[in-house]
């Protein structure tokens, strides 16, 4: 832990191992994120990326190793709104009548206190989240009427509404068109640069953010690469390549 300047990293994991059954899914994984860092986590399908983030946010308990969020074990963390998590799967039932504005407003609850009245500052934060995800005009629309890409942006706006200090997104832009990806990139960069948040992004479509990333972590059950994108490029892997090809490229990386 980096205690030399008295500031714990936003996220740190050391020697993390995990298995659902007999087969290990994560082995001796170490990850660290400081505030203001924008990091991508990539790896072939089934390499343990979703499992790792579920361990990092405390939804799964590692077999061994330690995880710290803001210097605390995940289950003892206070002010949990500081952690935003956008899961890989869209869990919202398609037959649920709910508007875009209603969904994004629930994202503010952790920050405002889930039992508290909504104050003007909370409304402003929800408006801001809707705007930065390009959803201001859609807030009264039922979620079910939106395209897949628009629905993904709703989930991102929901996470942004609590202005988290650590945002973890599990393949949030799979199947989102290029224009929406640029908008998405802008809202993440805004969160990192204006609010000093740390962002951990799992994605195979990194073209839109390639120039903004501080680091790339490549996971294949263990961390096989952790460094700036330029160093990864030197090993022959390009982040600008077509999304379907990136996992194949990464298979080659030892």
């Amino acid at each position, binding site marked *: 832990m980096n205690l030399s300047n008295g500031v714990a990293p936003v996220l740190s994991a050391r020697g993390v191992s995990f298995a659902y059954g007999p087969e290990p899914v994560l082995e001796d994984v170490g990850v660290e994120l400081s505030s203001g860092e924008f990091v991508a986590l990539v790896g072939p399908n089934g390499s343990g990326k979703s499992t790792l983030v579920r361990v990092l946010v405390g939804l799964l308990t590692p077999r061994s190793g330690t995880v710290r969020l803001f210097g605390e074990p995940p289950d003892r963390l206070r002010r949990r709104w500081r952690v*935003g998590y956008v*899961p890989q799967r869209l*869990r919202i039932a398609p037959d649920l009548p709910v508007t875009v504005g*209603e969904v994004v407003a*629930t994202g503010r*609850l952790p920050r405002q206190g889930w039992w508290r009245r909504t104050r003007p500052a909370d409304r402003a934060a929800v408006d801001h989240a809707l705007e930065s995800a390009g959803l201001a005009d859609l807030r009264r629309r039922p979620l079910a009427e939106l395209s897949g890409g628009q629905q993904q942006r709703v989930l991102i706006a929901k996470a942004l509404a609590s202005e988290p200090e650590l945002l973890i997104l599990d393949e949030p832009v799979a199947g989102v068109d290029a224009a929406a990806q640029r908008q998405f990139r802008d809202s993440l960069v805004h969160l990192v640069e204006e609010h000093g948040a740390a962002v951990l992004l799992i994605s195979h479509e990194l073209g839109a953010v390639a120039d903004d990333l501080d680091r790339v972590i490549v996971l294949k059950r263990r961390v096989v690469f952790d460094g700036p994108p330029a160093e990864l490029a030197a090993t022959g892997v390009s982040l600008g390549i077509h999304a379907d090809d990136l996992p194949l490229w990464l298979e080659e990386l030892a």
Partner: protein
Amino acid sequence: MDAMPGMPWPLPWPFDRTYMQLALVAGMVVGAAAPCVGTFLVQKRLSLLGDGLGHAAVAGVGAGLLVGTGPTWTALAVAVGAAVVVEWLRTRGSASGDLALALIFYGGIAAGVVLASRSTDANLQPYLFGSILTVGADDAYAVLGLGAAIVATVAVTGRALLAVVLDEESARVSGIPARLLNVLLAVLTAVTIVASMRVVGVLLVAALMVLPVASARLVARSFRGTMLGAVAVGLTSVVLGLAASRQWALASGGTIVLVAVATFVVVSVFQAVRAGAARPDAGGLLSGPG
């Protein structure tokens, strides 16, 4: 002359008699509270939870009849206890948990029937299917109190319950107490059942939690609209059902539920005609408490 104590002015037929006014007060509370809670149950695919807890509550009714304390509070204790156990079993999510639910539900109703049979001249029927003739002023005020507690709780926790319905895991990660809220929803369901038992009965109450919501979400575009629409359907069903049961001397509980069923059919047909094609399903209406 024949007005309920506390009613400010005489009401027109069919609510001109005291027993009908007591039934109306108790019925409107139930008509509003049951769909409020039901909106979350339907979206969580827990539509049958109310039915199961209603079965379990019969044990409390039987115990109350046997001891002679009046079954409301014993039913409340049993239903709330069952709700907490059921929620705990549900989070464990194992197959034996499913069987354990059946044990609680059928064990509850069987125990209620046996207990009631041991008590002198006690009749379970009014609690199973509702009976407005048996609603006294004390009952009406108890229902009013329980209903107010339910609506106030939903008003405070509704947004957080929606957050859990939308995505339980991201809610938990960010500090919304999802497990606690799930238990709270089960307890609210139990309280609703007991509040409703004199009006529609524990075996029919689940219908008032689910059917108005099923109707409302065919037309609603927002979650708030679904809940308000469901409450409107619930209230209408109660008022029309009570009036019809007075006019034709019908069982009140069954009549109220049939009005709710008819409303769902009418709304479905209306929507199907408007859309030019029927919706493929009524989504989740028939899915179990698992």
